[in-house]
């Protein structure tokens, strides 16, 4: 975690800040979701508490906190309490593995009467070289939280919701894992930072020994794997239990699904978990298919140079340049989060057999075909990211 006190402190604080960022984005997203749905459905939405209803979230949080503590006597108390805590963990850990901005280089400096440095701080909680594998492994642990909640509540609606959720999550896990394989062949790495490095500049690749350059398109993964992106995005909706795949909490049939017996802050934690998974899915989409924290072409280089120029201190300039790229990343992620919300108010829910058919009989064969076609094109054409 670091070689001296300063580095360890910064790394731990960074970890906390990234986690808090995730938790703090949730109320904002809930507000966006409520206002956005109102906008889509030609309503007003929450607009009474504070300007534009912005402090509604604060009022909601306080209300959640002061709700009566309730445990159904027929439940398994330990599982019932463990489930909301467990819902938080996978999303938060997975999000920590994604680079949010470029690494910050810090030159040696003097502080508290001693000499520190030099350091390089990664703009992420931890940089694992198995990047995407880690994220896929951890984020699918989210199914356990739902299963524990459903089983622990000892209510038939909860149980059915949990079973549906777990069956749905494992079914779409297959298509999700396979849809990324095509792009991994091109990137030749599982590490996110290296992937982002490869997506710089305009679209350029080798095909039959000739170098092709498309100057008006950025070198993003989506232009190499459009089908892969479509499959991944669809699977991400199913994994996060969002409409049109929200059968675990289909309120017409299952009341509220796995969190029927939960209320107050415990239910809020399931929400944080769900939004956390949405954030992870959006961040992975951004990093894999949309160039991560980099702006298209070489604009991010000009941006960081401009920001660095505005500060006299080299270290401060570096920190602020990383912050600027972090904003770019945040904007991209927020765009995908808005797509999640947008789709929710656009598409109706599937029937359960349709959902399973889509996962097993449509998306899985297409993902397999995608892998085969990509492998074949690489073999004959030698195409790919430079």
């Amino acid at each position, binding site marked *: 975690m670091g070689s001296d006190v300063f580095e360890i402190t910064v790394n731990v604080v960074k970890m906390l800040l990234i986690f808090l960022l995730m938790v703090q984005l949730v109320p904002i997203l809930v507000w966006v979701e409520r206002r956005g749905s109102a906008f889509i459905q030609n309503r007003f939405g929450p607009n009474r508490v504070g300007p534009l209803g912005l402090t509604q979230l604060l009022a909601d949080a306080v209300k959640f906190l002061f709700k009566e503590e309730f445990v*159904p006597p027929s439940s398994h108390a330990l599982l019932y309490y463990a489930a909301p805590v467990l819902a938080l963990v996978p999303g938060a850990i997975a999000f920590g593995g994604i680079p949010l901005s470029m690494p910050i280089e810090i030159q040696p400096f003097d502080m508290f009467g001693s000499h520190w440095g030099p350091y390089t701080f990664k703009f992420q909680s931890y940089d694992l070289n198995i990047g995407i594998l880690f994220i896929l492994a951890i984020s699918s642990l989210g199914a356990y939280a739902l299963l524990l909640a459903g089983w622990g509540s000892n209510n038939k609606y909860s149980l059915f919701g949990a079973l549906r959720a777990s069956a749905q999550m494992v079914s779409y896990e297959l298509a999700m894992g396979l849809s990324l394989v095509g792009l991994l062949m091109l990137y030749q790495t599982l590490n996110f930072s290296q992937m982002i490095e490869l997506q710089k500049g305009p679209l350029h690749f080798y095909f039959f020994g000739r170098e092709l350059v498309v100057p008006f398109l950025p070198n993003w993964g989506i232009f190499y794997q459009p089908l892969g992106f479509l499959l991944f995005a669809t699977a991400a909706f199913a994994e996060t239990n969002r409409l049109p795949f929200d059968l675990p909490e289909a309120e017409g049939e299952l009341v509220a699904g796995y969190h029927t017996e939960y209320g107050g802050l415990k239910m809020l934690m399931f929400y944080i978990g769900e939004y956390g998974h949405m954030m992870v899915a959006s961040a992975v989409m951004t990093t894999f298919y949309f160039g991560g924290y980099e702006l298209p072409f070489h604009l991010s280089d000009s941006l960081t140079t401009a920001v660095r120029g505005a500060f006299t201190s080299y270290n401060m300039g570096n920190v602020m340049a990383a912050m600027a790229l972090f904003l770019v990343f945040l904007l991209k992620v927020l765009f995908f989060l808005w797509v999640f919300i947008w789709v929710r108010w656009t598409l109706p829910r599937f029937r359960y057999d349709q959902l399973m058919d889509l996962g097993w009989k449509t998306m899985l064969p297409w993902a*397999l075909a995608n892998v085969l076609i990509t492998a074949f094109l690489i073999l004959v054409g030698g195409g790919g990211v430079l």
Partner: protein
Amino acid sequence: MILPVLVLALIVATFGTLLVYGASLVGPKKKKTAAKYMPYECGLPGQENKKTNVSIRFYLTAILFIMFDIEILFLYPWAVVYREFVDKGQGAFLFWELFVFIGLFVFGLMWEIKAKALEWD
């Protein structure tokens, strides 16, 4: 390498536990009534039945998932080294390996569909 992950997991779990515990302290304490403590039911008198039967399909889906997921996991290391082999001129071998692998995968999937293991009614 894995230490920061464990530290973060501990932080988040502590945060969550404190939230749940804190809320149980601040919340109002109310009287227990029989109706409130029944498992949730939509307007009907609650039936408490500890032995709920669930469809065997869920279990079957889980088994099928394990088998297919392990096969997909094997593709990851293959995908990462594939282009290295293509550049060295050994790509055809690796491609046919993949072809056989996916052929077996597709065979399994076809068999499942034929055996109606993926039918929901």
